[in-house]
């Protein structure tokens, strides 16, 4: 799987971070905002349906739903921060996605621990940006043997972190 977009959403469903790594064909990046928005509902449903079952403590929510071109995976932390991963359709093991989320969660926690970071606000730290990039590069290089689907357009290093955010009151 190639990572197309990573989105971090705060406990009250406020956007903290969204970054697009690559898009399939000429789709506007705004579409990722829509997908992430949809994913939040699915996450809520999944968490509710897991209540009082054996895996209620599980932070990894696995595959949330597929669209025509993307697959969307979810993760929720004990503080109700959600991480949404949008990838392309190529095969990937569940354990790899889980591993990816755990590493990303670690980076996120380290970034939140910065005393200069205002809690529950957008993450704009360049260090976080850099570490996420490293993680995604690492994840993709493991899959370098896989062929990219035709028409794949790479938009590397293009951060949508702060520019493409919907206004916070949009309650994404």
């Amino acid at each position, binding site marked *: 799987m190639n990572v197309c977009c990573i989105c971090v959403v705060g*406990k009250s469903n406020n956007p903290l971070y969204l970054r697009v790594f690559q898009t399939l064909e000429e789709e506007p990046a705004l579409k990722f905002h829509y997908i992430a928005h949809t994913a939040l509902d699915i996450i809520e449903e999944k968490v509710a349906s897991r*209540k*009082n079952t054996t895996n*209620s*403590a*599980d*932070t990894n929510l696995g595959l949330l739903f597929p669209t025509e071109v993307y697959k969307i995976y979810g993760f*929720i*932390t*004990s*503080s*109700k*921060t959600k991480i949404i991963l949008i990838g392309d359709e190529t095969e990937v093991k569940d354990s790899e996605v889980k591993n990816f989320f755990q590493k990303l*969660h*670690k980076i996120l*926690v380290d970034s*939140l*621990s910065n*005393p200069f970071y205002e*809690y529950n606000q957008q993450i704009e730290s360049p260090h976080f940006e850099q570490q996420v990039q490293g993680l995604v590069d690492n994840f993709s290089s493991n899959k370098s043997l896989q062929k990219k689907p035709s028409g794949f357009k790479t938009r590397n290093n293009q951060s949508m972190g702060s520019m493409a955010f919907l206004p916070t009151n949009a309650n994404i």
Partner: protein
Amino acid sequence: MSNPAKQRTEVAASTLELLHSEMVEYTTNDSKYSSHKEKAYTVLEDMGFKVGIRLGERLTRDKGRFADNLDTIKFICKDFWSECFKKNVDNLKTNHKGTYVLHDSKFTYLTRLSLSTPEETANAAKNHVVFSCGIIRGCLSSLGVEAFVTAEINALPSVLFKVIEISRQ
């Protein structure tokens, strides 16, 4: 932090305690707040809150999610308490309606507190638990439990922390 063998970083306990008592001195003796002690407490509590929410994120990283609020409080009593105060809570009481009483019979920040008279010591002790109340409130808040946290000191160095949930989710 949750993988002690590999990643535990050490902090000099005495330095931390000095920093803590200096923070208490700095805020409570500030001339700005001399007439309103509550304001100094608010500042100090807020400092604790900010530390607490980050600790909440960090300490639960590999823990998985908590089933309910009682689970969260149990986490506070064990893992959180031993990370922050180097021991476990001695006793936890709850009325199952959102009020919890955490009893620590030997609270770290009060064990080495001593002033010239017992009255002065008792007064100083009040200042020395405010920051900790903030940490607890912050940690609970990051785990989705909004609560009031107050401390009651009857006989040094034993402290009763009272946690009252604001809203039950």
